[in-house]
């Protein structure tokens, strides 16, 4: 029974105008297995899922479900067949309760009205199974991102799915939540549910998957039992080059003694209180904390994105009042936000405009904007940061996550800022692009830029930081100077304070 194929992809190709997203992909997903789908951004993982879930109806090739050829007309159709996708947390309706989101479109009814008692009791049962602390009558907007992600998983469970696909489910979860998710996945597997697990985190493949399929540039590379493969083999399959180590400093750390940013007793009530630290020239300062530690709020407040209650900020020894991002920029600070799509890039602008946005005055002569200079500036950074495609007129929104991140970075480099706040620099970025971002971080520090790197990825914090600040519930609980950082030590501070 375990060896029967649940889903069979046969010669699947999908062509978008201008590019082949999938090229003759064939493989099997067995009944009741956890099948990891691994690949860089742009490898075709999401396209394949979208075809499976009836989101794309035009493609070449065949899909067999339990030996039967299927051709879903829409996502609803796929759900009827028991094939459910766990969406990103942004697919929830914030104003509805958790329970309403879970059953959305399939509300239990009493006559013509919604049967709320049944709705909440059914939803609570699922939340309990997921060991969630929040209740189904909570308003979704009030949940943390991790809790929202759990809600989307609850939504999939509600549909009694035969096949559940999860697309990067842990990108917004942390620690215990990830463990819970993995336990749930195992539980589902034991009950015979087939799981498709899309990820680019290799450790997760080894933790959770039975078999793993690698895609690269829309082409099928390999399918293996996880017990038979090594990390190095999978990486080689994914990127076609050997990535032995990435989140490490290749060159000696050598920040200077000169303090460029000095934060004293900064408070934003009720988020964080009395935060003080110093940032030196050429330093990468890691800020680590669990979800709820308010690490993002600290950098946002310094940059001027949020209102401060009290505290002083000194830049190069001079006290500065920074009440808006405009003043942040004037004081040579740039912020690269965690949520790139919502806060980093402007969707209707081209690469040239997005990159030039913070320094348009450079291209103004006699009151008029010189579009050509703006384009040359863009081309310069496209070359420097190795952006693809190298087209200034391309809309940034259509680039991959890693390239979008480079565009946001290029914006601040164009504006020649000296202090850069990187909030989750590699979130949702594939391994290849991560590596490039780490090298860029190192280059920038060497050029004398000062960097605050906020991250929830421990390997990244440990590998890249010169010093580490650990936050817990809005307080700095520990500052570690560079020695050899240990994972356990950092986690302990972050959890217990």
């Amino acid at each position: 029974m375990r060896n029967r194929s649940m889903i069979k992809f046969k010669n699947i190709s999908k062509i978008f105008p201008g590019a082949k997203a999938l090229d003759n992909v064939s493989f099997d997903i067995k009944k009741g297995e956890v099948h990891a789908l691994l690949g860089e951004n742009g490898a075709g993982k999401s396209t394949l899922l979208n075809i499976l879930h009836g989101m794309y109806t035009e493609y070449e090739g065949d899909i067999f479900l339990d030996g039967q050829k299927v051709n879903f007309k829409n996502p609803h159709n796929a759900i009827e067949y028991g094939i459910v996708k766990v969406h990103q947390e942004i697919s929830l309706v914030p104003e509805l309760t958790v329970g309403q989101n879970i059953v959305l479109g399939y509300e239990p009814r009493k006559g013509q009205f919604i049967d709320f008692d049944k709705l909440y009791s059914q939803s609570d049962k699922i939340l309990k199974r997921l060991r969630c602390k929040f209740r189904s009558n909570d308003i979704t907007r009030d949940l943390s991102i991790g809790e929202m992600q759990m809600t989307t998983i609850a939504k999939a469970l509600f549909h009694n799915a035969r096949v559940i696909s999860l697309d990067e489910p842990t990108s917004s979860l942390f620690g215990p939540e990830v463990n819970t998710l993995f336990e749930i996945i195992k539980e589902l597997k034991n009950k015979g549910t087939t799981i498709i697990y899309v990820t680019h985190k290799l450790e997760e493949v080894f933790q959770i998957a039975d078999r793993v399929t690698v895609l690269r540039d829309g082409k099928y590379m390999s399918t293996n039992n996880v017990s038979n493969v090594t990390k190095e083999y999978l990486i080689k399959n994914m990127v076609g080059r050997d990535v032995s180590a990435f989140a490490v400093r290749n060159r000696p750390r050598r920040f200077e003694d000169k303090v460029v940013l000095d934060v004293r007793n900064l408070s934003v009530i009720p988020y964080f209180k009395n935060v003080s630290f110093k940032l030196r020239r050429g330093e990468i300062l890691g800020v680590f904390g669990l979800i709820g530690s308010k690490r993002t709020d600290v950098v946002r407040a310094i940059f001027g994105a949020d209102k401060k209650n009290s505290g002083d900020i000194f830049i190069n020894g001079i006290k500065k009042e920074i009440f808006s991002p405009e003043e942040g920029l004037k004081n040579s600070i740039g912020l690269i936000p965690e949520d790139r799509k919502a806060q980093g890039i402007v969707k209707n602008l081209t690469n040239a405009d997005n990159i030039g946005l913070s320094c348009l005055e450079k291209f103004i002569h006699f009151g008029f904007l010189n579009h050509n200079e703006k384009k040359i500036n863009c081309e310069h950074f496209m070359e420097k940061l190795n952006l693809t495609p190298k087209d200034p007129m391309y809309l940034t929104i259509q680039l991959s996550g890693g390239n979008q991140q480079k565009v946001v970075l290029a914006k601040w480099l164009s504006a020649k800022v000296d202090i850069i706040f990187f909030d989750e620099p590699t979130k949702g970025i594939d391994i290849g692009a991560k590596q490039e971002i780490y090298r860029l971080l190192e280059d920038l520090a060497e050029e004398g830029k000062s960097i605050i790197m906020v991250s929830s990825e421990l390997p990244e914090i440990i590998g890249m930081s010169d010093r580490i600040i650990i936050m817990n519930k809005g307080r700095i609980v520990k500052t570690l100077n560079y020695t050899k950082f240990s994972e356990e030590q950092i986690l302990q501070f972050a959890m217990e304070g």
Partner: protein
Amino acid sequence: MYKKKKKKNIKIIREFGIILAIFLIVIIFTIINPIYITPYNIISIIEQSTINGLIGIGVTFAILTAGIDLSVGSTFAIIIVFVGKLLVSGINPILSIIIGIGLGFALGIVNGLIICKMNIQPFVVTLGTMSLYRGIAYIFTGGWPVLDIPKNFRMMVDGDILYNIPVSIFILLLFAFLTHILLRYTRFGIYVYALGGNEEATRLSGISTEKTKILAYGIVGIGAALAGIVMLARLGTGEPSAGQGYELNAIAAAAIGGASLAGGKGSIIGTLLGAALLSALKVGLIVVGVETFWQYIATGLIIILAVYIEYIQSKLYLKSLTVSKMR
């Protein structure tokens, strides 16, 4: 490089589509009634589109910031009665015009300030000022029209220069040219588009989105003021009740011209063509002898159809560009 070319082509096609639609309307009406194509009639079409064009160009700025301005019809009325009073009391026409434009700008700025400082949605703010400004216009004249607008002012603004072409058309073209330059070749213009596309990302890029927004509403006010000045010259009287419903015509012109009410998309040329299309249709329906009631129906259908075609076009455009979008 290949994508760049493609994008340019589609852009040409986009405005070409509206021009084609105008031609189609002209041809159909000419076949039904050849009077439609006479020079006199064509000038009347253009003349009709000046008021809507001026207001529409202004409103395009609000729409580009993902906002809206419903108060333009009332701003228009205030300018008409105020400038009318200035002229009647013997103030120099040029000075009166400058004061009128300044007042329009100020009324727009007030909208922008309320939107930004009190953090209220533009729709609600301008719904409020629509009534507020209208009330001011009525109170200012006690409800009476301003009569006997001096001839020299009327000639200056709406007199014929050559053949039967009135000055007001050149006012429209000049305003369109200047605002086009403003949008395409200044920082402010790029910020307007950026703000409409993603306000938070624009703010976090170190740009004062508030200043940009407030100024954008100021320009909306200038558009309404210019329209009011032209109207005053054309009619020779200033009615405080003038311009009711004009905000909707202006929004229609912008939408037909490809402006997205979601913000960040639209152009001055598009709005100009949108206004031309609407008046070509309106005049055509009159020439052909369609009943007034049916004119409303035809106008409504054209608005929806035009925006739908725009939607299909942009979908095709995205499809032609999409390389990595869903991957």
